[in-house]
């Protein structure tokens, strides 16, 4: 009797999230069929927004930049996470360093970008006064590298936690048995640790892809899409279209496209990485 009425305690959370998360998530599809600036009344135009996206060179350019950014961020991110988790494992300073690595993800984004900006700005930056800083305000490659470094800086602690949680779950006895059988450290890593870390790596790659397809705050704060649109990732393109050019209907259609892209990338990766797993087990 008493147990059943406890269900009502879920109502505030379910109601609020239903209205402000689930409903907008589904509603975006309806918006995407409108020609709508936010101020004027919306005009239904069917699937025209999607046709426009297909023909929009800015969209394809932005998609290309996003993919380049994703690959060049994801690879060092995953490698660094694994190396750090391994290097930290069992060290006396493990906890302290992990706490430090986790800090950038929590601190004020605006404050963090100010620190990065004043440190690395090629014109007024502190580093520029002692060594030449690449002109990331003029070169696309360096601008992307800056955003990449900032993104890795913010999320490295999380990556290390993911790998490390998995690492701790590997039974010590397994590695000891391998050592007794004469396996070297690198062999033990190659044939025992690495395969057992695979779920964590899959998780990181999938999460990392999802995040890089959607991230735009760092771009907004550091480069504003520049130089010459060189860092205009999809998320930033979406923001610009919706709220600087006031094309909300078009931006809604872009949201749907990005969601579909994210979902298919994540599914494909999960399947691909799991597929490798099956083959090795067989």
């Amino acid at each position, binding site marked *: 009797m*008493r*147990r059943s*009425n*406890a*269900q*009502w*305690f*879920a109502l*505030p*959370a*379910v109601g*609020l*999230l239903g209205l*402000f*998360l*689930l409903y*907008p*998530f589904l*509603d*975006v599809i309806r*918006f995407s069929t409108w020609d709508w600036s*936010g101020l004027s009344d919306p005009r239904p135009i069917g699937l025209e927004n999607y046709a426009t996206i297909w023909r929009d060179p800015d969209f394809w350019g932005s998609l290309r930049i996003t993919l380049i950014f994703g690959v060049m961020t994801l690879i060092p991110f995953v490698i660094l996470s694994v190396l750090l988790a391994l*290097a*930290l494992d069992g*060290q006396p300073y493990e906890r302290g360093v992990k*706490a*430090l690595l*986790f*800090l950038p993800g*929590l*601190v*004020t984004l*605006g*404050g*963090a*970008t*100010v*620190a990065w*900006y*004043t*440190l690395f*700005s090629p014109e*007024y930056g*502190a580093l520029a*006064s*002692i060594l030449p800083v690449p002109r990331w305000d003029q070169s696309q490659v360096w601008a992307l590298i800056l955003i990449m470094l900032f993104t890795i800086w913010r999320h*490295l602690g999380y990556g290390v*936690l*993911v790998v490390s*949680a998995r690492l701790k779950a590997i039974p010590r006895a397994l590695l000891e048995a391998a050592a007794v059988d004469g396996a070297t450290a690198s062999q033990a890593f190659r044939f025992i640790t690495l395969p057992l870390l695979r779920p964590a790596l899959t998780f990181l790659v999938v999460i990392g892809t999802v995040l890089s397809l*959607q991230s*735009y*705050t760092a771009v*907004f704060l550091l480069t504003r899409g520049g130089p010459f649109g060189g860092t205009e990732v999809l*998320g930033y393109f*979406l923001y610009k279209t*919706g*709220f600087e050019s006031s094309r909300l209907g078009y*931006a809604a259609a872009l*949201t749907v496209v990005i969601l579909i892209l994210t979902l298919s990338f994540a599914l494909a990766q999960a399947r691909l990485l799991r597929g490798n797993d099956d083959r090795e087990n067989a």
Partner: protein
Amino acid sequence: MNALRHAFVFVVAFLVALPFIWMAYAAFIPPELIFSGNILGQFGFSLENFAVLSQGGFWEGFWGRLLYSVLLTGGVTLLQLLTAFLAAYAIREGAKVLPLFLIMMAIPVELLLVPLYGLLQNLRLLDSIWALILPFAASPFIVYLMFQGMRTVPEELLEAARLDGADHRVLLSQILFPLLRPQLIAAGVLAFAAHWNLVLYPRIVAGSDDLKTVQTWITDLQRQNPADWGPLSAAALAATLPLVIIYLIYERRIVETFEEGLKG
């Protein structure tokens, strides 16, 4: 081999810490030094940058925005903890809504700017403080963390209390609340940081001067005076320090709670 390992960790840790060290120092650099261009060659200390922040009316200025943001984000955090605490209790008591929260955890909130903007416009909440509160009054992630914590409370304990005649209110406030205090703190810090760090969203849905958060204030200042970064650094430090201190106090609980969440 071992030396290499220590060196690797040390170098990475140093690079990660560098922006923080710089942030702490830059706030106190005397303005003459910044404009002379000889920033790292000479050492200087001054409080002038903070004095600049205090100029102008209190509520429009930096300190007013900081106080407003602390109150706003603090309030949102309490709301989030309350709704999550109640929902986690309901789930523990048999409400079958956990899958719903897990699905909602996977929805990328950052991408929902456009439809959320439309919804807030329809509800006539745009450019009101509610636009900064209501969409964040509940979080599926915090519900999940609270439920993870509540799962560890033994059923016998609650059963015994029920036999003594405890109702929901007593169970929640006298038993579960003290037991879950560590998780509440950890989840609270994470929730606080998530709301505190919103940059684009407040700018879009509540951009008027009296609703500006400290983040928006700093990014506006950065855009207006990119070269005059003494006051900018002081503002960045003052806006970051509260969070860093809270984090350092509860760091062990936070990292542990996060790791538990990863395992589940």
